């Protein structure tokens, strides 16, 4: 659809291993519109982090093989852009990143102020506008203090003089959010930003992230394995399984009328009552020799012959609701 900020199409990425090529992404489609929060959900090893890193262009060059596909960012294909443009103008400027682990993402021997200063030297939006010298430093500092205030860090001036170990996990994650927003990006990729946090701190961080994204109109790609957090902050959700996107839907439709058998099984795995809980039999397939067709077919109780040969193409189940399944579930589900 036109007007998408990011459109990933047919992306195929493999990783060279000693045992052979692991097919980590197998023809993945994903579209993010400006200003929307897109949840990317899946279990470990499903390829959500690889997809996020492909968009950022930070896959390990020695192992990753991008075999096919395109990543369109405002119409230009990031995979065909030269590294200089990518590093100078896109990565860290128009697309920024919030890492999972706020503990190891700062340099322990420099103060927060120094580290934010380094960031602003290269990635300040004023730099792109050509403002320089003292005027830029003053305006950058104001912007930093304003953002630290926005992420509700008490006493921004004193935070700048502190070292990372003097801050709590929640404070560090607030700083990460501030730093991701400082360059004035169009897309923030948040890779499991609340996984390492306690539930009360998680609630604070999610609230903050959502309100800031809404306020600044930035789009967010939010990867997580926790369906509950996607319900909290996302507009749309895409589910991945073993390197394939299986379903994509707005939040209400996703939880109200999940259509892919994998999605429904995933929702049924959430702990509710002792009798209602059910896991998914079998295990995630190896990615070096994945099953042909839909990769969920060996664990799927609805699988037919077709599923084992050709991967289904997306079928529309409703407005913006796409599912890749030959026999999608039809029943709606009490959320």
């Amino acid at each position, binding site marked *: 659809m036109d007007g998408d900020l990011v459109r990933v199409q047919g992306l195929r990425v493999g990783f060279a291993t000693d045992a052979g090529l692991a097919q980590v992404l197998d023809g993945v489609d994903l579209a993010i519109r400006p200003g929307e929060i897109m949840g990317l959900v899946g279990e470990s090893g499903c390829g959500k982090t690889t997809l996020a890193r492909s968009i950022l262009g930070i896959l390990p060059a020695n192992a990753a093989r991008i075999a096919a596909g395109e990543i369109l960012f405002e119409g230009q294909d990031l995979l065909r852009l030269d590294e200089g443009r990518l590093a100078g103008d896109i990565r860290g400027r128009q697309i920024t990143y919030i890492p999972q682990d706020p503990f190891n993402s700062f340099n322990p021997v420099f103060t927060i102020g120094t580290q934010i200063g380094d960031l602003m030297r290269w990635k300040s939006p004023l730099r792109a506008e050509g403002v320089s010298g003292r005027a830029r430093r003053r305006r950058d500092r104001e912007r930093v203090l304003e953002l630290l205030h926005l992420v509700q860090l008490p006493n921004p001036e004193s935070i700048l003089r502190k070292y990372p170990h003097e801050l709590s996990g929640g404070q560090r994650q607030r700083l990460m959010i501030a730093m991701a927003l400082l360059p004035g990006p169009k897309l923030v990729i948040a890779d499991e930003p609340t996984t390492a946090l306690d539930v009360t701190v998680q609630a*604070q961080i999610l609230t903050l992230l959502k309100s800031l994204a809404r306020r600044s109109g930035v789009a967010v790609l939010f990867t997580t394995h926790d369906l509950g957090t996607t319900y909290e902050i996302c507009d749309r959700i895409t589910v991945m399984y073993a390197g394939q996107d299986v379903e994509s839907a707005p939040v209400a439709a996703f939880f109200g009328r999940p259509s892919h058998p994998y999605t429904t099984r*995933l929702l049924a795995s959430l*702990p509710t*009552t*002792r009798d209602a809980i059910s896991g998914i039999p079998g295990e995630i397939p190896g990615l070096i020799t994945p099953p042909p067709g839909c990769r969920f077919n060996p664990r799927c109780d609805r699988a037919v012959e077709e599923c084992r040969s050709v991967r289904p193409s997306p079928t529309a189940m409703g407005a913006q609701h796409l599912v890749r399944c030959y026999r999608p579930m039809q029943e709606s589900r009490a959320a």
Partner: protein
Amino acid sequence: MSETPILEVETLRKYFPIRNVWKRRTGWLKALDDVSLTVRKGEILGIVGESGCGKSTLGKTLMGIHQPSAGRVVFEGADIAAMKPHQSRALRRHLQYCYQDPGASLDPRWSIGASLREPLTIHENLKGDAATTRVREILRAVGLPEGHLDLYPHEISGGQQRRVGLARILTLKPSVLILDEPTSGLDVSVQATILTLLLDLRQQFDLTYLFISHDLSVVRMISDRVAVMYLGRIVEIGTAEAIFETPRHPYTRSLLSAIPKIGGARVTDNFALEGEPPSPANLPSGCRFRTRCPMAQPVCAETDPQLREDWPGQAAACLLA
């Protein structure tokens, strides 16, 4: 579930010394501060709290991995906290501790069968066919085929390793199992199978669980009773239903309001609790939750509230509840 207590904990304390660079003690970290609770035979008691609240220290102190600073731990009628380690060893056999990933404790150079036999040889002097029969029985119980006995840990998947780890703990026929974060780090679909397995095993082997977790929805699903910990104290304890339906302590309420509920009101629309827990080395006076409590009054700074059992099947440590 019967009313007979199988494990009683009375005013258990575990203080860790805080030392400066010259090894001089400068203070105490009160990881457990007067924790009392009773575990009844056959029940699943969930212990929840945020990181640093002392839930793992509680498990480890009960197990004897940490020596308690004060208090009593009565297990099957004997005070094991007061005993010397060699005296309590025989008793503790029936009290087993299960680490977050029991599979990681398997020796990579030993076959699964050898790993499973080891505890039998050490504790029960069981050898030969008798041991093999017992090992087979346990392996079947955790849902693994017999052929796995000859495999090595690297030949089976992580989920299966976890099952073997559980089997290893079960070979000694414990009566109480302390499960420390048994499902953290697992994907939901695998978590679901492990939880079902734990429920199955409890039936089969007549087990009592102390289920330590930070995941409230898992605890809600699996527990009969729940204890909520905050900074080394139990702030609220009661039946799972009471704790989750009618929480009395403001901390429990905040904790519950922080869990995302699919289909319900969004937490991000109205979450109120501010700040993070203070350090257990530097506790506030009076009630330790008062610095973050939305209901705090001046009196909370003066009196340290004790657990009050003012509601049927539920007790809370709050002056204002």
